[in-house]
């Protein structure tokens, strides 16, 4: 693979996309085509309205089949969108998919520039891609044996669902849960909105299934302590979680005792990981709607717990011995926060997203109160009612019919919760004042015994896991998928998938769908017993390697490089060798090799140098 060995292709095919006007409205695609065709090494340049369409791909396939081209450059949108598309088209033509280079003339050109400048820049980018393409070589994906084994982290609804589905599919599954319990947040619910199913039934059904399944190993009170390996062959070190606040500390822990010895560690050899680590319920700040300061202000999860032990006095609800004549439920607590209006948390963050599930949960609770305790009034204070799902709008209607009274507030003017003063609002312990959009923006006031805060979902406390597994996290702090539509449960770490509310707020049904979608990806990945990896790994040119060992020093992966004794024409010598499945393809070794013996397949230094050469060169122009 050395420069000396390398033959430059002179049959590069260039295919330029109009993108239905997205590109061609700003870039003179025909001029690019004409100019590019004169670049040395370019055999043919063509254009199409949509290169990604079948007829577009057909152009490439035809040219390859006829032997007109042996390297392909497509100039179109961002490579993240269609690189895979064109590689597979090339494969269909019977060629090696890695003879392909992508020029991004939409996001980097036509969407940021106009006129001649756009055309000129597009030409340069295409030229650079041609420069690289001439040096591309056919590569073969790395074939890695994969364990037909999946580890699911988190035994809430999503984790148990994924575990059950994968075990049914014939894979071995380990289900790891930090707490001693299976069931996650669902276990803390009473009934599920809008279906009214008992959460306990759902949790029990799933728990039974995973506990009894021969192919599922359930490990509760267990956490991840180490993460190593690569797709198809991950090694997870797990460790039991001890009761008490200071599991790793030696010495006396007040009120707990002394931790005896180091907890044993276990290594799980697995093929893929599904993260079902769930969410954390938002804790209101002290004083937020009186929370923590005023008795009778509780969060929705706290209310659900109280309500499960509800008593009755006449027609009225009695909680904890207190007769509740009137309840106010406030939506969007800790969700839909707006910079400049809401206070940031300790880390300077705001939850700008909608927590999706609270509207239905509140309405469901409101309906239950009204339907069971006709004497208890319910006020619902909302910003927007978001009953989007099947059966949810009906729940909203049911709440109205059952006599729940709605008030609409804006983020700028949230309801004010104060202690009752026995005045106009009567002998209620709490008094609510809100500028009510439904009452023509006037202030209305009501006396209540209880305020329920519909607290939203926050990303779980999994910083350690995120750091250990190098997981991508979004601005909302939830785990981030690669693309919401193209790869909705995949992470940027191959073989690591997302399930349920670790990714975003979801209902139980949605979390189960997410878990099943993650399971199907894991099943597809591991089903064949092997995985094919991108061949973009380091490669040593034995003709140039002097065995300095600098590359080993620089290597960032454990065991991706080794020194071996080889026989050369000049006798025995030490040379570096790459263990492909371990190589991460970062190229740290490339920079340090004094002889340029090691390079990255598919992304070689020489290719970059060729690209720079094309960028600084003049493009022949007949205009």
């Amino acid at each position: 693979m050395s420069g000396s060995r390398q033959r430059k292709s002179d049959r590069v095919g260039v295919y330029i996309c109009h993108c239905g006007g997205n590109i061609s409205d700003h870039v003179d695609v025909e001029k690019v085509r004409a100019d590019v065709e004169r670049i040395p090494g370019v055999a043919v340049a063509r254009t199409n309205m949509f290169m990604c369409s079948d007829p577009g791909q057909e152009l490439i396939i035809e040219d390859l089949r006829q032997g007109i081209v042996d390297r392909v450059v497509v100039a179109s949108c961002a490579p993240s969108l269609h690189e895979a598309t064109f590689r597979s088209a090339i494969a269909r033509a019977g060629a090696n998919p890695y003879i392909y280079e992508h020029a991004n003339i939409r996001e980097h050109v036509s969407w940021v520039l106009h006129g001649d400048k756009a055309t000129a820049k597009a030409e340069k980018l295409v030229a650079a891609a041609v420069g690289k393409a001439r040096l591309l070589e056919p590569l073969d994906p790395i074939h890695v044996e994969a364990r037909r084994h999946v580890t699911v982290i988190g035994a809430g609804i999503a984790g148990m669902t994924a575990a059950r589905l994968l075990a049914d599919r014939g894979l071995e599954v380990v289900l790891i849960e930090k707490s001693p319990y299976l069931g996650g947040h669902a276990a803390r619910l009473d009934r599920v909105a809008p279906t009214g199913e008992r959460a306990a039934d759902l949790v029990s059904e799933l728990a039974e299934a995973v506990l009894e399944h021969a192919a599922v190993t359930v490990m509760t009170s267990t956490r991840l302590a180490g993460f190593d390996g690569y797709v198809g062959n991950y090694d997870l070190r797990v460790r039991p979680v001890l009761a008490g606040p200071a599991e790793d500390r030696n010495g006396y822990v007040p009120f707990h005792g002394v931790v005896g010895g180091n907890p044993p560690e276990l290594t799980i050899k697995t093929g893929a990981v599904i993260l079902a680590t769930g969410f954390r319920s938002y804790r209101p700040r002290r004083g937020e709607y009186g929370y923590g300061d005023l008795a009778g202000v509780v969060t929705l999860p706290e209310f659900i717990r109280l309500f499960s032990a509800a008593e009755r006095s006449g027609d009225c609800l009695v909680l904890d011995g207190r007769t509740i004549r009137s309840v106010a439920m406030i939506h969007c607590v800790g969700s839909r926060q707006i910079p400049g209006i809401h206070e940031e948390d300790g880390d300077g963050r705001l939850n700008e997203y909608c927590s999706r599930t609270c509207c239905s949960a509140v309405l469901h609770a409101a309906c239950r109160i009204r339907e069971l305790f006709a004497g208890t009034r319910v006020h619902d204070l909302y910003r927007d009612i978001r009953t989007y799902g099947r059966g949810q709008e009906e729940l909203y209607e049911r709440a109205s019919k059952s006599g729940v009274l709605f008030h609409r507030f804006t983020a700028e003017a949230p309801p004010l919760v104060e202690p009752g003063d026995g005045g106009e609002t009567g002998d209620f312990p709490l008094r609510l004042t809100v500028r009510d959009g439904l009452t023509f923006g006037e202030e209305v006031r009501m006396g209540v015994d209880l305020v329920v805060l519909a607290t939203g979902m926050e990303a779980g406390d999994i910083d350690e896991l995120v750091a250990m597994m190098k997981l991508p996290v979004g601005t909302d702090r939830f785990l981030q998928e690669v693309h919401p539509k193209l790869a909705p449960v995949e992470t940027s770490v191959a073989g690591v998938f997302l399930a349920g509310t670790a990714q975003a707020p979801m209902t139980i049904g949605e979390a189960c769908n997410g878990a099943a979608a993650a399971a199907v990806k894991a099943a597809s990945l591991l089903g064949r017993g092997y995985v094919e990896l991108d061949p973009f790994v380091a490669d040593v040119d034995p003709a140039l390697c002097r065995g300095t060992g600098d590359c080993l020093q620089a290597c960032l992966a454990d065991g991706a490089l080794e020194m071996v004794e080889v026989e050369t024409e000049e006798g025995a010598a030490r040379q570096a060798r790459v263990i492909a499945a371990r190589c991460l393809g970062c190229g740290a070794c490339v920079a340090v090799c004094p002889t340029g013996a090691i390079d990255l397949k598919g992304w070689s230094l020489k290719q970059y140098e060729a690209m720079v050469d094309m960028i600084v060169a003049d493009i022949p122009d007949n205009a």
Partner: protein
Amino acid sequence: MTSGRTITCDALVVGGGIAGLQAALDLADQGFSVVIIESDLSIGGKMIRLSKVFPTLDCSSCITTPKMASAAHHDNITIFTWCELQSLERDNTTVTARVTARPRYVDEEKCIGCRKCEYACPVLVPDPEQGGFSGTKAIRIPFSNAIPQVAALDPEHCMLCGRCARACPTGAVDYLQQPRQFTVTARTAVLATGFEMTSPGDRPQYGNGTIANVITALQMERILAPHGPYNRVLRPMDGMEPDSIAFVQCAGSRDLSMGVPYCSRFCCMYAIKQAMLLSGALPLADIVIYYMDIRAFGKGYEQFYQTAKAMGIQFVKGKVARLQGLEGGTVAVHYEAQEGEGVSVDNHDLVVLSMGVVPHWSPEGICRVSTGADRFIRTVRPSLSPVRTDLEGVFVAGAASGPKDIVDTIAEAGAAAMAASNYLAAVRQQG
């Protein structure tokens, strides 16, 4: 395709929209053989007809075409378009589908998609793929990125002049083509039959579809699409660049009086998306969204909504009660300004209706899966397995079981594929 033949596969997927394609791909990637039957001329469903998609503003066609192409080229997937499902029955472990392939009047095997027939045809007809805003021909490739790229003739508008047949280089035009029957037997089926929009034609408050410059959201998608009818945003009535555009939310949903009491779920987001795209295309235009509740509930949706507000898009709370066509193509929007100002009438150059979402297909008389009061396919385990129908071995994905945005649809399609593959695995063990 010969008449009456039987195709055997592991899984039948009914519907080749994004839900069906994703379910088929997730099944096929596990090694199962899949047959997709699609009622339209092309796979891709509603999604391929959209401009860009929220909240990423990716071009819809850029996301859909790779999935269409990979399904079309997948070794384990066979696709039949322009088909009608006559019956879908299940007994023991076999699902049997009787299918009618409707005539295209063009031989699928012979057509090379060159469009010569289309150029030759003298009959102009409103193009449904462009919201009716431009003409197409009585014989044509349905749209530029359709799969398959095969022409189809519309017999309602054909005068049998023979020009297309003469122009066709491969002799593919066949005016005498007849419907053909075939049977698909499978072990399991996924229903991914998608949704349809209600029509403004039976909404007297909105002019029964007769007011100029009142269009539906799907028509607006075409106007905004990169290869739309005008390649820019113009009023369909007279080609004027609109200065003021209104979106009417819940124009057919959350409304018992219109027969759709449920929320259509994705209209808020597409209206915001279209508003953003419009404000990009027409920076000086006033854009107003009339709404009851903004339902930006998905990942990144609320932020998308706030961005739209920050861009200057106006959000007016109030359900539009009435539209009125005025002189010169202006449309008057009647609503109640909620802060107590009472009735307001605002004039706009163009009004976009967010119509209700209803099922595209009814299983009645075709398949024994039951539907809910909302006429979408009923799911029997809405929490633990939202893809299960009451017919064993038959699963449902996407908008067939209720309105769903693309993100939720894709996740659910994966879930349906997982459920179907586990069902297949179980059936195999038994068999």
